[in-house]
């Protein structure tokens, strides 16, 4: 048992809420050996994060944990705060999902890196600084000396996550707990990050707990896997066995939730719905009274596209590549240059008023199912709001009937339509957003990362739903995603964007199996690596 660094026994986590006590973790036991990578997988809400938060003493003030979390003879759940503060950050460290917000925006990278080094290793300022620079170099931050003086907002998400890793490893920990550390990052950066973590793990010989919902990552890096559901471990075992021979029905469902299938291509000479040529979008930053001319930023640079009836064009690329900006420009939600026509009618120069009747035919569904629904309107009101604009003469009863019908189409119980958004799950909210778009019987729908915020299983249901709706209503989709597996299942044509330009396009087979551009190859390698 000497190699066992962390051993959780019968850990229960509960939260006191206004609705009474909620049990998030219901008696979980697991262990991690030195040098081993253990993955904890499960959907959001399965309690996988809260379990490790409890072990680190990081539960919210209304949370409490029972059981034992044994680290080299000390029960982390019951030792004093000062002893716990001697262990966490030094011997056991944790990195989190949100690279953009996990660093303190008000202090420099150097300050934040040095503080725990000085505390745990009792080093002076100069020595701590040297160690911090060494760590930045280790996580491949270019020009580490200069970067020490940077603030988090001056760095990209990937760089911030590297800094987080540097902070976590600076004191040579025995165990690193990583809570979805790559989920918020682009696939190419995700791949680099996983490689980096694997190499650092080997170098330091530490154990690693990897909390994730992404089975692809588990397959690549974990030795052993715990599958959690509703606060309990339903299955555990070696990664290879578990993937080859899942015993529990839930594990099988998780494995089968990978998006599958292909979309049959639309007829090659189907009606042109949208024809966009040389679309350019330029943002102007700053400028004004006494401060000189504004800085110009070309967000979309000469991108052309033809979207036909029944077709789905997938737009892929990293964040900042201009995918969403291009789609918004096509819908005339952003000012742009170039020519755009809808059903062979030029719409580039129409005024807001002239665009309004066309709006019902051009709908959009956004990524964030939490932010894109008004919290002060019921599901029914949200879904029918567009009808108030486009069919003002419609009677209340008829509107209600249409709302029920639209909710049925997205497989939501229409009797729930008087509830408010916060009473729905993420997947249900995304269904409401889709119902809001299709109730107007649109011809073109822009889907901007509609599944990215959802768990794999829910994602699969939404993909199926979108495909069914497309077939039934002969819709054209512009599908934006950084998740190539979903794009492969949805699109019959793919555009790859980088730095505002389209670098490659073609059928999914052409782009994914035989990419011509180096950039596309890297993107595919990162997304589908085994």
């Amino acid at each position, binding site marked *: 048992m000497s190699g066992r660094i962390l051993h959780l026994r019968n850990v229960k986590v509960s939260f006191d809420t206004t609705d009474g006590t909620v049990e998030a973790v219901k008696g979980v036991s697991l262990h991690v050996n030195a040098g081993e990578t253990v993955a904890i997988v499960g959907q959001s809400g399965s309690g996988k994060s809260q379990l490790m938060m409890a072990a680190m003493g990081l539960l919210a003030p209304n949370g409490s944990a029972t059981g034992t979390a044994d680290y080299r003879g000390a029960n982390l759940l019951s030792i004093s705060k000062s002893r716990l503060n001697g262990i966490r950050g030094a011997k056991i460290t944790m990195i989190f999902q949100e690279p953009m917000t*996990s*660093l303190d925006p008000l202090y420099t990278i150097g300050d934040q890196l040095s503080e*725990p080094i000085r*505390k745990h290793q009792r080093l002076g300022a100069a020595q701590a600084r040297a160690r911090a620079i060494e760590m930045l170099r280790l996580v491949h931050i270019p020009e580490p000396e200069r970067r020490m003086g940077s603030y988090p907002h001056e760095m990209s998400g990937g760089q911030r996550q590297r800094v987080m890793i540097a902070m976590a490893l600076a004191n040579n920990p025995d165990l690193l707990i990583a809570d979805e550390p790559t989920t918020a990052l682009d696939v190419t950066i995700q791949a680099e990050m996983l490689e980096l973590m694997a190499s650092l793990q080997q170098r330091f010989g530490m154990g690693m707990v990897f909390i994730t919902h992404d089975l692809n990552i588990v397959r690549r890096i974990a030795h052993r896997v715990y599958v959690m559901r509703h606060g309990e471990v339903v299955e555990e075992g070696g990664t290879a066995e578990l993937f080859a021979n899942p015993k529990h029905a839930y594990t099988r469902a998780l494995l089968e939730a990978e998006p599958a299938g292909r979309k049959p291509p639309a007829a090659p000479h189907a009606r042109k719905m949208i024809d966009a040529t040389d679309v350019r979008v330029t943002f102007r930053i700053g400028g004004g009274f006494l401060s000189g001319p504004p800085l110009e930023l070309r967000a979309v640079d000469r991108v052309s596209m033809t979207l036909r009836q029944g077709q789905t064009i997938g737009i892929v690329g990293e964040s900042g590549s201009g995918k969403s900006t291009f789609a918004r420009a096509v819908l005339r939600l952003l000012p742009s240059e170039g020519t755009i026509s809808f059903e062979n009618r030029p719409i580039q120069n129409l005024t807001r008023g002239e665009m309004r009747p066309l709006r019902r035919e051009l709908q959009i569904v956004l990524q964030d199912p939490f932010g894109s629904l008004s919290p002060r309107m019921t599901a029914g009101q949200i879904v029918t709001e567009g009808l108030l604009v486009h069919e003002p003469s419609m009677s209340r009863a008829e509107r209600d009937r249409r709302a029920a019908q639209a909710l049925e189409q997205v497989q939501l119980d229409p009797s729930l339509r008087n509830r408010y958004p916060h009473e729905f799950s993420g997947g249900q909210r995304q269904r409401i957003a889709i119902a809001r778009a299709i109730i107007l019987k649109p011809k073109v729908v822009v889907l901007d990362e509609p599944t990215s915020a959802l768990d794999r299983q829910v994602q699969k249901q939404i993909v199926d739903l979108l495909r069914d709706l497309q077939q039934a209503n002969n819709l054209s989709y512009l599908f934006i995603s950084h998740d190539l597996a979903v794009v492969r299942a949805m699109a019959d044509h793919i555009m790859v964007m980088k730095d505002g330009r389209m670098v490659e396009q073609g059928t999914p087979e052409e782009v994914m199996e035989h990419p011509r551009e180096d950039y596309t190859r890297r993107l595919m390698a990162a997304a589908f690596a085994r």
Partner: protein
Amino acid sequence: MLRYVLRRLLTAIPTLFVIVTISFFLMRAAPGGPFNQEKGLNPVIKANLERVFHLDQPLWKQYLLYLNNLIHGDFGPSYNLPDFTVAELFADSLPISIQLGGSALVLALLLGGILGIIAALHQNKPADYAVIATATAGSTVPTFVIAPLFQLFFALTLKWFPVGGWGDGALVNKVGPVLTLMLPQLAIVARLMRGSMIESLRSHHIRTARALGLSDYSVVIRHALRGALLPIISYAGPAAAALLTGSIIVETIFSIPGVGRYFVEGALNRDYTLVMGTVVVIAVFTIVFNLIVDILYAVVDPRVRYD
């Protein structure tokens, strides 16, 4: 940064000009004048007075005359206190109001800040409820109730402090007005601080700091408090401008010769120059404190850049 400050000071000039112009004509639009008294002044004397103060000139001429004097730093004479110029009145009274208001503000920020932090650290526990209850009481009981209660209890019954008067700035004379001015501010600061501290403590980078094993002091003071200060700073700016330019209620109740009463007295007596002077002083304070707020913002938060 220096360029930014200069630019802000330059843009203050047109702002002040607009404020002065609007106030000037609004004041003149009100019926009556400085020499319309109940008994009625001898018409000859009245005409003489009006000639001396240029009130017989067309309005636009008076306006240009006032602007010209103002640019040369001359606020003009007071109509109702003819022995003094407006500048002299301010020279005597403004320092008093600044002392009282400044002390009240500093105390409110310190005590309110500490109470707010304590409440946030013990959210939904007795200490928190106690602070919220105090803050609610502090912001709902009006000044004109607190001040007499203070006089009744501490001055008349316990005889710790004088009932009123400035006493050439003796400390005992200041306690009452400062406490009365401070209480409502303290209540607001404590509530603001509690809210923004709770939010700050919930943020992801605080979780990171805890996960790194940093001490409570570092987590709460170094990391959480600094981020929580921003809303307090933006409140303190306008509050400072209001407090330092005096309070009619507190100064009247405690018989303090501060600047606060001039605004109301001046307006009631149509003492045009006095009202205009007060307007200019308050406007300048407001502009300056808003600028200080923006500079402090950039000092606390490196993401704020003005160039």
